[in-house]
């Protein structure tokens, strides 16, 4: 094969690999992703489907017995419908009522079951004024 054909072949092979990777990436990301929802958007939640719930822990709603925690989550902006979450595990150190959290949940009856080790409490904002609790 003369050099320029060799180069063209190499280029085509490389581009094809890149395309295959990109297609695999795109396809699996859309199927593996969990939708991000706030509590007000979870009204029509399908049981058994995992959602990424973001919101604020409602004041006065956090109860825990050993490793079983239950709390209510409301929209980030406050007000509106809340959802009940049950989480088995250790909550992260920054976890507090009134703080924003992110957690993967699945609907089970009237309660949303938190997936293990998926609870993330956002660092209380360093870059905006501390909300006076």
């Amino acid at each position, binding site marked *: 094969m003369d050099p320029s054909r060799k180069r063209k072949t190499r280029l085509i092979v490389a581009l094809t690999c890149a395309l295959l990777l990109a297609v*695999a990436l795109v396809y699996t*990301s859309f199927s593996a992703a969990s939708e991000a929802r706030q509590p007000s958007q979870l009204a029509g939640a399908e049981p058994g489907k995992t959602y990424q719930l973001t919101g604020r822990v409602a004041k006065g709603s956090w109860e825990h017995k050993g490793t079983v925690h239950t709390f209510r989550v409301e929209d980030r902006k406050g007000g509106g419908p809340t959802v009940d979450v049950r989480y088995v595990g250790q909550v992260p150190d920054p976890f507090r009522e009134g703080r924003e959290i992110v957690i993967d949940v699945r609907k089970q009856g009237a309660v949303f079951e938190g997936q293990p080790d998926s609870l993330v409490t956002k*660092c209380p904002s*360093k870059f905006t004024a501390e909300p006076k609790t």
Partner: protein
Amino acid sequence: MATAGSICLAAALAICLYGIGASLYGARTGRREYVDSGRRAVYALAGMTVVAMLILQLAFVRSDFAFELVATHSSTTTPLFYRLTAVWSSQEGSLLLWVLLLSLWSSAILYLTRRKLREVAPYATAVLLGFGAFFCALLVFLESPFTTLAAPPVEGTGLNPLLRHPSMMIHPPMLYSGYTLFAVPFAFAIGALITRRLGSEWIRSTRPFTLAAWLFLGIGIMLGARWSYMELGWGGYWAWDPVENASLMPWLTGTAFLHSVMIQEKRGMLKVWNVSLVLATGVLAILGTFLVRSGILQSIHAFGASTLGIPFLVLIGVMIGGSILLVSSRAESLRSEHRLDSLLSREAAFLLNNLVLVALCFVVFWGTFFPLISEAVTGEEASVGPPWFNRYITPLALILVLLSGIGPLIAWRRATVANLRRNFALPIGAAVLVAMVLVAMGVTGSVPALLMFAFAAFVLGALGQELWRGVGARRAMSRDSVPAALVALVRRNRRRYGGYTVHAGIAVLFVGVAASSAFQSQHLVELRPGQTDRVGDYAIKYERPTSRLIAASNGRLERIDLGARLRVRRGDGDAEVVDTYKSYFPSMASDLGAISRFFEGEATSEVGLRAGLRRDLWTAVGPDIGRLQPRIDEGDKVFADASDLSEADRGALLAEALRGLTRSYTDDPPPATFRFIVSPMVSWIWLGGLIVFGGAAIALWPAGARARRPATAAGLARVARELERA
């Protein structure tokens, strides 16, 4: 004081704008004095920002709560070290740090190139000052660090205790040094494109800065990972969180650039690729700076939606648009001088390495921005988690490690096939041997991990062989002893052996990652004192609860520690004591009771760690303070009623009450929640990181005068003579 600071920043902005104008005018008209003036503007910017930072630091050290920043990020009970580093825990302070570091590195490069790169340097100066002007404008108009409070509080809010870790305070300066150092090759690339001076000189002059940027950014990333492992209560070091990814992306493209630029220097190839890589790295560095403070992605670090989103997006848009415009209009000057000689060459290995690194960057980019992408495509915001990332990163990382061993074994230009077989024999043998031994030992739970161990053995075998042969070659010529030959070998071939060291470090690091991810044991249990849990080969007994009151240097109470003493035994070995506790820092909110404020503030975990080369035992405790609630409520009431006590009496009474509280926890402890993790070979990650940084330091070390010998007239004559003889 604050006004003085504001004047510094305003002057800095003016200096930046002047410098841009002077540099561009000097470049267009050829008037050298304006270019010199523009360069001096950069030095002046450095001076101004240093003074502004000093003023701010002084305010923190003195706990001057008239400064709003000090009042909201520090307190009198914050130790001095953290008071100094609290400056950049805020949006405003971190922006000031960014422009300070930018001005320092820019001054360094412009000083070093003041007699070189005459056509390119003025444009690079303008670009660097452009960044400076952007950040100064943010500081002057949107986020001033020097806002004052009309009624300064008596005590500040204090530094978020999660940040009270030495790693966490060096982490921002390291990261920002990385980002701002990457601005240097970016600026010079822009200058080279504008002036069509696309030869090797700008690359050579900026290389130390590119390497330093890569080193510092890498250190910053490692520190973040280590902090996550030690301080956050989950025992992991990487979560594919958007902010972690934001710092990783420019590092990946920077690594690709450092490799592919060698091809350009040798063969004049890949000019478009290289210039695109360095421009992309600069854009990703600014993107990283932006992501941390934009609030557009859900992240553990999402520091709230701020007003800076739009200006940063505009800057990034300008950078991307300008880059594409410049590269496409200079396509002629970017034509390759040669083609790839052979696929069996180090150049080809580098090319493959570049493709893998860019693929890695693309995966990280796609996964990080997926919430925005999916919202644009489907209208629903969706996110992907670590399992998705790991699915693609793992095979790519395996290929990358393998390549890092193959590269050193192949010659430049075109390898001799027969020699190739000989060179690969030992490393392949090492890999196969390690694989067989591991399989025989029963380490078969994870195929990717097994492959990674084998590939790492291949890499280390290849590098060991290279070192051995290099020393042998040196000794054949100079009759040095082995250590002397080694030192001389490395000194004369810093880039090569520095690079080899980095590759060795990466192999070690990935062995640690593979082992600790694939073979980890983790338990989350509730234990009463006296109970034992078994994790991995360890038997962990919760011996007794612990409690402590910690006072700050000024006598005020800094925090309460509640924890556990554990007695740990592995197999038949001796029992060891491991302490772990949770620290509770008081909240400054005025509506909380005197006692309960201690449990409504921030809490951090002090991990009980037994680190070793073969495995880490990681322990954390979550005390159940629910049982203490009645006593806390009672204490609040007592203090609310006793408001007529003097300050001193109140303090004494508070200390007594808290002592009683903590004693009640240890006297009658409720079951506590423990997380125990046994992670094999986690220390290899930190060790690998140190080796990588050592390698970078070797490569960065300035070559001595001896290495420049060929440049003398005698050297030139010799080259010509030898050619005639050949």
